């Protein structure tokens, strides 16, 4: 029987999610033993969500246009290139990548 510890979030209250934007502690831990692991996580699979830093090296935010453009060609917005790569990278409200982050190169 594992020793139980209090979780750090408030139970039930949606208040932390109301205009959340508070960077939660990002936990990068090793998986626990299979007999002490929530059942549903037995089926969690690694997924490559890409390296945000790599993408950000190629593009930059243009504060005047208020959209992202290529670093090597600031006249060209990414969206004009017909490419849909990933709608959002990095963290959302500090909660980690969303479940619907997606990647479709060269389609648009």
């Amino acid at each position, binding site marked *: 029987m594992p020793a139980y510890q209090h979780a750090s979030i408030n139970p039930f209250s949606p208040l932390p999610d109301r205009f959340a934007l508070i960077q939660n502690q990002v936990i990068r831990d090793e998986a626990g033993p299979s007999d002490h692991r*929530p059942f549903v996580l037995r089926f969690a699979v690694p997924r490559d969500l890409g390296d945000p830093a790599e993408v950000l090296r190629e593009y930059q935010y243009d504060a005047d246009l208020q959209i992202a453009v290529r670093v090597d060609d600031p006249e060209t917005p990414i969206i004009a290139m017909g490419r849909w790569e990933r709608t959002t990278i990095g963290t959302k409200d500090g909660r980690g990548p969303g479940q619907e982050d997606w990647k479709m190169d060269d389609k648009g």
Partner: protein
Amino acid sequence: MTVVVLAEEFDLTADRVVRELVGRGVEVFRADTSWFPEELVLDASYDDTWTGTLRTTHRSVRLEDVRSVWYRSPSAFTFPAELSGPERAFAAREAKFGLGGVLMALPALWVNHPGREADASYKPAQLSSARECGLLVPATVVTNDPKVVLELADQANGNIVVKTLGPNVLAEDGTTKIAYTHRLSPADLADLTGVELTAHQFQEWIEKDFDVRATVVGDKVFAAAIDGMSEAGYVDWRADFAGQRLRSLDVPPPVVRAMLRYLARFGLRYGAFDFAVRPDGEWVFLECNPGGQYGWIEAGTGLPITSAMADLLARE
């Protein structure tokens, strides 16, 4: 009047909407909350109404001119590295209740209001609300008792799935893992160890011809059939974006009416509904993500969702 877009700097879906709005001559103020407080300055005063400005070094918006706010997954506030952990947490709370509080107090149209979105993110509430709005929903248990899971499996002839109640993303072992909807095998049912560790959601498996993602923007509905072309993608289309086929389709009017009732019930103006369409043609509600993505649906079907979002945000 100005449309405020709260989004990360690199967000192609937000880029498309910003460009659509600007092309229509609509004033747009885009900001990421990670710019606060260093690059985003709030100056708000209350005297019968909230007035003041929200500004960056490039542009500003008068609070009384905010027509609408698109709360499109902005990122966390950023504070000086010199702050201690407790100071940072305190500063973040104050920023949330200050910047977030002022914006949410404005008489503006929100897509979606963060509070309504938070309320609508609870899947048990989604299921009961969907049913009360007239939609079919799967038999569902939320439990930490393995015996209850076996009872549901008995009722469903062993055909049940497990799916997360909240975000399905986990960072461990130095990588990102995702817990997609999983159809339980007899071996899974024989060993339900771990169910007792927290709340789990199990549902009857819905035999389906295809899935549907119905994106509702205001009162406009854009539906796409999703044909999962792999075994994993058939069970949960999120598991295989590359192997899915999309096609637009019409939504039965009773389902449209039910979705609009559902959004009104939660105070939402945007929702991404997931359905399984059974072989008999009945649509079964699975969930509604109030902040769901639509970029890949628009890219794959040509449905004019960006235009509809611009319509909604720019509406007088």
